[in-house]
Each structure stands twice: as C-alpha cells, then as structure tokens.
C-alpha cells in the first residue's frame, strides 16, 4: 500500500513538472506599451531606443520577411497582438479593403509636413487616410563594371545571352515576372492571358543567366563576386557599392518596379494614442536620418533628405532620381486565377 502511495505521489509530481511553464505571468498591457510588427533589417534598433527614451513608451518589436507572412501572422493572432504594421503599397490596399486597419488621427501627425508632396496621396490609399509612408525603393540593376563589359541600360539587357550565369535576382515572383513584363513593354500587373504567355516565353530565357535567387541579402553575392549583375533592391545596391566601388546602379529605361512601405495601425490596437505618437515620431526628421544611415532606402522625408546633404542626395542608389519613381510601377493585387498563372511560370523558371 505504502509503495502505491509513493508511486502515486511520484506520478503526481511528474505530472506537475510537466505542467510547469504553462501558467506563467500574464503580461498586462499597461498604458506605456506598443507592439510593433515590421520588416526585418529595415528599422534600426536606435530609433526604438530613442522613442522609448523620449516618451517612456515601451516598444515590443517583432519582424517579418514578406507582406504575406505579416498578413498570415496578423490574421492568426488575437486582435491587439500587434498595434502597428509596416506593409508595402499593395498590401496597404488589401488591409484597407479587408477592414483590418484604423484611420490615422491627422491632428496627431504634426510631422506629416516633412514628407514630400509626391509621396502623399498614393493610389493605394488616397488621402493617406490609413497610412503614411516610411521608406521605399526600386528593384534596380547592379552591374560590376570591372567584370561586365556590356553596357546594361534596361531590364531587357538582363536577358542577353552574354550574361550567362552572371545574375543574382530577387527570389520574388512578382519582381522577376514584373521585370520581364516591363521589358516587353507590358504592365507588371498584366492579366491578359495572351500577353502572359508571351511573358512566360521570355521569362524562361532568363533561366540560363540566373546564377542565384536571393531576397534576403542579394548584395552578398555581388560583393563576393559570385554574381556580377543583379536585379535587386536599390538600398542593397547602395550597400554593395560601399564595399566594392566597381559596382554601379542602373535604373531600367522601361520604368522600374517601385515600392513604398507604410505605417498603419491595426484594428484592436490597445493603445491608439501611443501608436499615433510612434508614427508621428517616425516622420520626424531626426528619426528618418537615423533610419537612412543604417538602411539607405528611398527616403520620402524631404526635410531629412535636405539635412543629410550630398552624401545621401547625390548617391543615386540611395536616392533614386524623381523620374525613376514617377515612371515606375507598383505591384498591385491580382485575382487568384492570374496569380496562379504567375505562380506556374515561376515554378517553370525554377524547376
């Protein structure tokens, strides 16, 4: 009997240990906390520290590596898990259409005047009701001029057979298919099946030229010399130019793939005022400068651009010329059938 009692007690003890860690202390959202969900490698730690210091509001930061990841995560978590997100143009539109975001309080956005006129009132959120721009960029062309003699001026040049095995391109189907469409003079958001068939034929000729697909850090392949031409984000080119001065940035003649990432507040945000304070803080000149120092993407904050001087404004990779932006095209949301065609050709390219 005694043995049984002992064994029973031991079982109970075991069961208890199995359950430890289940309870834990529930984190209470006190007034001074916001949960921020941003792109990885995009918002420097120093800005969050500065914000915390100035306002006493604590920032809990998590990161994602694609708009779709962000959307899936936000949907699968309880409302209020994330207060602030940083989606790109087409995702902004999608979040608005799905009613997932709060309107921004214009009164609280005292720093909005820092943003250049041309970056306001975008097609994906007319009147900036729900979003304000953070940073943007271009899927531009990088050329290592020491290794490549051919003059490259357009997306179309990337298909030249002489570039066999030389390219690093974004591992992003909308970017690569979009670039192919632009090289044929079509829209990046083409839906016409005949044109898509034409795009596919051309896309598949790119296969021999691509050495690798990389979205996470495409600059590494350029810097290490594994690839000598790239179709990658402009800021990645800017960073690779700092390592290797032979690398040059080229903006395609056909008009480039451009993007803009934007601050938004999600429905169910527990601390709206603090979130607004944060967004306004990000529009501040000094914050934008801190950001640009570390992640030199296109900065829509004209006041900050002025303050940064020629080091930023005269660097074409950091600061793409205005006509590149105005002649560029955003990715748009497409219907499921078209996306499926896009996915199919992407699979064909990569098989």
């Amino acid at each position: 009997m005694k043995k049984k009692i002992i064994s029973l007690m031991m079982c109970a003890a075991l069961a208890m240990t199995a359950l430890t860690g289940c309870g834990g202390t529930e984190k209470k959202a006190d007034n001074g906390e916001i949960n921020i969900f941003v792109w990885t490698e995009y918002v420097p730690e120093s800005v969050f520290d500065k914000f915390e210091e100035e306002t006493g509001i604590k920032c809990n930061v998590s990161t994602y590596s694609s708009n779709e990841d962000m959307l899936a995560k936000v949907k699968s978590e309880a409302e209020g898990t994330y207060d602030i997100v940083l989606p790109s143009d087409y995702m902004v539109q999608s979040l608005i259409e799905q009613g997932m975001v709060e309107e921004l309080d214009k009164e609280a956005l005292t720093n909005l005047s820092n943003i250049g006129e041309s970056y306001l009132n975008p097609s994906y959120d007319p009147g900036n009701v729900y979003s304000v721009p953070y940073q943007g960029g271009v899927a531009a062309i990088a050329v290592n001029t020491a290794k490549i003699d051919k003059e490259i001026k357009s997306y179309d040049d990337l298909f030249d057979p002489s570039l066999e095995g030389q390219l690093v391109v974004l591992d992003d189907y909308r970017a690569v298919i979009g670039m192919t469409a632009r090289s044929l003079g079509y829209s990046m958001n083409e839906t016409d099946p005949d044109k898509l068939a034409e795009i596919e034929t051309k896309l598949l000729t790119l296969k021999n030229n691509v050495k690798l697909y990389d979205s996470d850090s495409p600059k590494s392949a350029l810097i290490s010399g594994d690839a000598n031409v790239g179709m990658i984000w402009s800021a990645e080119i800017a960073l690779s130019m700092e390592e290797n001065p032979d690398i040059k940035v080229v903006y395609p003649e056909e008009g480039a793939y451009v993007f803009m990432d934007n601050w938004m507040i999600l429905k169910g945000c527990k601390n709206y005022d603090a979130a607004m304070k944060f967004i306004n803080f990000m529009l501040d000149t000094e914050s934008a400068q801190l950001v640009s120092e570390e992640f030199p993407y296109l900065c829509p904050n004209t006041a900050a651009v002025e303050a940064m001087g020629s080091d930023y404004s005269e660097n074409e990779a950091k600061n793409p010329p205005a006509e590149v932006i105005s002649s560029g095209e955003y990715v748009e949301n497409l219907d499921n059938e078209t996306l499926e065609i896009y996915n199919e050709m992407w699979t064909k390219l990569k098989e």
Partner: protein
Amino acid sequence: MEKKHSSHQFRSNTLPALVMVGPVALLLVLLVAVPLVYVAVMSFCTTDEYYNVVFKFSLANYGKLLSPDYIKIYGQSILIAFITTLLCILIAYPFSYIIARTKSKRKQLFYMLVIIPFWTNSLIRVYGWRTFLGTNGWLNNALQALHITTEPLDFLYNQGTTVLGMVYCLIPFMILPLYTAIEKLDGSLLEASSDLGAKPVKTFFEVILPLTASGIFSGSIMVFIPCLGYFFVSNILGGGNSDVIGNLIERQFKSGNNWPLGAALSIILILVTLLLVKIYKKLGGDMDSLGV
C-alpha cells in the same frame, strides 16, 4: 460494494497509468494529431480573393499536384535524395565500420565528433559552406594561391552543391544507425567465415553486409525523407536552382499564399514517408532503429 470496488480499481490501476501516460498522450494529440488533421482538412479547402482559407470542399489542390511542372520537381527531388542517400552510405559505411570496430580508446571521441556539429544550427553550417565555396571563398583562394587554378571556379549554386549540403547535413543520420548495426555484429561470425576459407571480400558481401543491412535501411530512410523537404539547403547552396518538394511547399505557404495547395503538397510528402516506412517494415526493418 460494486461501486467501491471499481473506484478502488480505478485508483490502483487506471489512475497511475493515466497520470503517467496522460501528459504524453495530450502532447502527442496537441502537437502531432491535431496539426496533421488540420493539414489534411486544409488540403481540401480553397482560398478567397484575400488568400483567406475557405472551408469549401474541393479536390482542385490534388488535381494541381499532377501538373507536369510539379512532376518535374518531384523527379528532381527524388534524384537529389537518391544521390544523397547513396553518397551517405558510401561515406558513412567505412567510417562507421572503423569507429564501431576499433579497439582504440578514442572510439568515444570519434563518436562525439559526429555528434558535436549537431550543436550548431544547420542553417549556419550551410551558410558556412557558401562562404567556403564562393568565388572569393577559401577554397578558390587556396587553389589559386597554390597555382592549381588561375581563375576562380564556379562551385556554388547548382545541383551538385545542393547534394553536397544535403550529404553534409544528413550524414549523421546514416552514421548513427550504421554504427549501432555494426557494433552489434558478432566477431565470432567473422572468425568463422575466415576459418571456413572465405576471403575478406566474400566475408564482407556474404556475412557483414547482410547482417548490417538493417542499419543501411534505417539510415537510408532517415536521409532520404528529410532530403525531400530540406528547402533551406537548396535555397542557400542551390541558389534556388535545384528545388526540392520542400521548396514547393514553402513557396505555397509564403509568397504563393496558397495554404491549401501547400497543405496538399505536404500530405503527399507525408504519404511518401509512410509508404517508405511501410516498405522498410515489410523488408524486416527494425522500427526501434528509426527512433519511432
């Protein structure tokens, strides 16, 4: 009276069993059964215009699995897995044989050398290979410094490097079961074989190999199956040029945003796994050495 008896029985028999097995069973249900059912259900769903999964029964996802583009990738995947498994056997067998049969005191050390790399995340180790093999990597620099080559060689971003990465990541899974099988080998059988006049080669093929076949089988299963799914190896070392089934699944869950199709692909992978394990069992494989 009857009731008292049964409650006593519950306390003495069922309760301890429940307390001991319950938590594990609960974990298994929560972490294995529920996700599996979830994936299976999702594979029959569709998506709406915002990529939300809609619970509307459809077989369309399974229909898409038969598209020629996908079949090409299955083929490529199986080829990569097959070559990887073969290379793992060829490398791991002599190695395991030596460490299992050695009388040296360093036996434990050799064994540890296989296990220690496990303590570093495989992602980091695979990135290490990329740095090592790159155009300006150590290997190319060394070859040029030794005047073996004049121009840097292109090692990276093809099926060969993908296979290399797979072999590198998965070889411990081949060594460990082989080691166990070879260690169990009865030395007196080898002596008997040689006493009866068999040459070493004959002894190997007619005594050692059949007796260690179970190790080869279980090692092959444990290398072949993950190989179909290790998308990060083909992403990092293959540069996206040698996709395996794992890449297809990853793409549907991430950029493709078609979770139901990704789920259907996962189900296929699970079925292939079950089939292989079934064949293994049928051939007399020992389930314990698979760790299941």
